């Protein structure tokens, strides 16, 4: 029953989203008013490099091949998918001739590490503090926290990260300004290297955690106030069950369920936020790679990052959806 009624439609939807997403990624550059090949060449020219006509012709041919622009759109499209399955996103232009996949492989651990830690931390912190604040919403600290959140919550990732950078790295020189580790340092599994990495990761992580937690806090507080009015919470109070138990096992536990779904829905936005934050702190992850790709007009690299993100995020959303029944016994997919 579960398989037929729920799993198969859900999987179909999953593959359809990926298929459409990747298709869009394929087609967008092909609708460009200026051919990416021409654009690349004009960009080289704009940097002041002199190109003689013969070279240009050769370059056009090479670039056309590198960008996968040979043949009709249909042929290109099939070729695109064929390469994608092999993990081949073509060759990067900005770090010619490194394959895009190599660049992504170097940057990915930084982004995954930052994103995973901060998403989990902010979800847990935001929900628990928001839950307690919602349950004890007449306490002074709860109102103060609510007031503070009203100032943080509306700020976009870039502005908030920049604010933290100015405050904690320039005004008070507590943290390094940029980078993932001190310059010239080789990765190793020594304590000092790990500490160095953590120190560099602190500000970007802080900015993601605070912003994320602020938004979970508010959502959680709102949900808790509705859960508070539920019969089973009243009943627990009637029964003289200990306050702490009511708060965690009855109120917050139930309030977290919709937040699991909300997490799945906001993963895409969280990823965008992480990419932008990386740019602010010159953190060596996908965000910075994207930044360089945009600045150099490196379509292959952007397509690679986007395609990968689409697959990763939709897969995560699928996983959360499929794991949800573990947390809510009422869901049985009848």
């Amino acid at each position, binding site marked *: 029953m579960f398989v037929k009624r729920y799993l198969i439609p859900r999987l179909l939807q999953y593959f359809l989203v990926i298929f459409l997403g990747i298709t869009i990624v394929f087609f967008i550059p092909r609708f460009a008013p200026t051919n990416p090949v021409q654009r690349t060449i004009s960009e080289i020219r704009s940097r002041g490099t002199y190109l003689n006509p013969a070279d240009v012709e050769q370059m056009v041919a090479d670039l056309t091949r590198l960008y996968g622009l040979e043949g009709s759109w249909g042929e290109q499209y099939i070729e695109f998918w064929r390469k994608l399955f092999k993990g081949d996103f073509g060759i990067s232009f900005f770090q010619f001739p490194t394959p895009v996949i190599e660049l992504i492989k170097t940057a990915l651990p930084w982004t995954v590490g930052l994103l995973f830690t901060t998403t989990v931390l902010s979800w847990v912190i935001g929900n628990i503090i928001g839950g307690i604040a919602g349950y004890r919403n007449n306490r002074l600290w709860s109102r103060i926290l609510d007031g503070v959140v009203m100032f943080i919550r509306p700020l976009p990732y870039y502005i908030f990260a920049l604010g933290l950078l100015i405050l904690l790295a320039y005004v008070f020189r507590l943290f390094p300004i940029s980078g993932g580790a001190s310059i010239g340092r080789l990765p190793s599994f020594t304590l000092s290297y790990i500490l160095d990495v953590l120190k560099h990761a602190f500000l970007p992580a802080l900015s993601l955690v605070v912003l994320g937690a602020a938004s979970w806090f508010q959502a959680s507080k709102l949900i808790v106030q509705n859960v508070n009015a*539920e*019969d*089973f919470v*009243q*009943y*627990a*109070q*009637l*029964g*003289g*069950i*200990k*306050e702490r*138990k009511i708060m965690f*096992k*009855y109120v917050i*536990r*139930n309030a977290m*369920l919709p937040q699991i779904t909300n997490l799945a829905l906001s993963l895409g936005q969280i990823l965008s936020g992480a990419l932008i934050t990386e740019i602010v702190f010159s953190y060596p992850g996908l965000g910075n790679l994207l930044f360089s790709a945009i600045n150099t007009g490196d379509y292959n690299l952007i397509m690679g990052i986007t395609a990968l993100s689409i697959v990763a995020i939709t897969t995560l959303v699928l996983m959360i959806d499929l794991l949800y029944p573990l*947390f*809510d*016994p*009422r869901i049985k997919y009848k």
Partner: protein
Amino acid sequence: MDNNTVLVTENIKSYYVLDVGGSKKVVKAVDDVNLTIRKNEIYGIAGESGCGKTTLMKTLYALMNPPLRFMGGKVIYYRDDQEIDILSLSKEERRKLRWEYIAYIPQGAMSIFNPVIKLKETYRDFLDSHLSGKTRDEIFEIAREHIKELGLPIKVLEAYPHQLSGGMRQRVAIALAGLLKPAVIFADEPTTALDVVVQRGVVQLLKDIQESLKNTIILVTHDMGIHANISDRMAIMYAGKIIEEAETKEIFYNPLHPYTRFLINSLPKFGDKGVRASAPGNPPSLANLPTGCPFHPRCPEKTDICTREVPELVQTGEEHKTACWLVSKGDE
């Protein structure tokens, strides 16, 4: 106070104070109620919905969440010759009093259990919060014993609330109320929303618990049939006030208030094929009560004074009190 009394209220008032677009609106849900409830009895409270029955129960149980506010009076319990003024207790003392001395069966048991935990966990939370020094296994053992004693299927403990029928959930709620052998159990409309066959089982379970614990049950229901069935004494509530109180037999054989008569006449009688008369019109809005006796707009026997002055609840017989100008006029 003789030592047969378990609960006395003195002029309790509980109002809902609502903020409607900047202006205050006061709903007098419980207004000047005096009750004396004895040990080892089933005390019934009847009345139409919206008359303040549930608010009265909540006040007696000291569960006051805004916008409900306690406006005055006293609720005194007698526990081992000790007077306990429940509304002046500290939060922790009140928490401990609950379930150990007074317990509650709330209205609408459909959603009173935490939906994401098994019922044995709910049992555990109730036991854990009131008994100390018990291991997890001992607690589950107590729960199993308790369920078995009451003749409920043991597997309900392993079930999630949504897996049980409404009747079974109600039975578990009743069973839970008796768990710590409280002196008083409040039952708020325990049979509403259940079909007739299930209702009988639920009423029987309530009766069984009262007989084995020899405690007091305060039973609120609009269903006069159930009162006739199990209540020893009862009160009729109308618009936040008690308008008649007597032994159940006396209420049914000698109702003095016209409203009580309406309630009794609305009951189906064996062999009666005629149209049953219920009180005409609707109960008044508690936020906007008429002057004088609140029942006068619906009363077929109203006189002049009824529209002007509120009748007091006065003794109108042995163990019989009524608040109606028709009966209390003679005293003037």
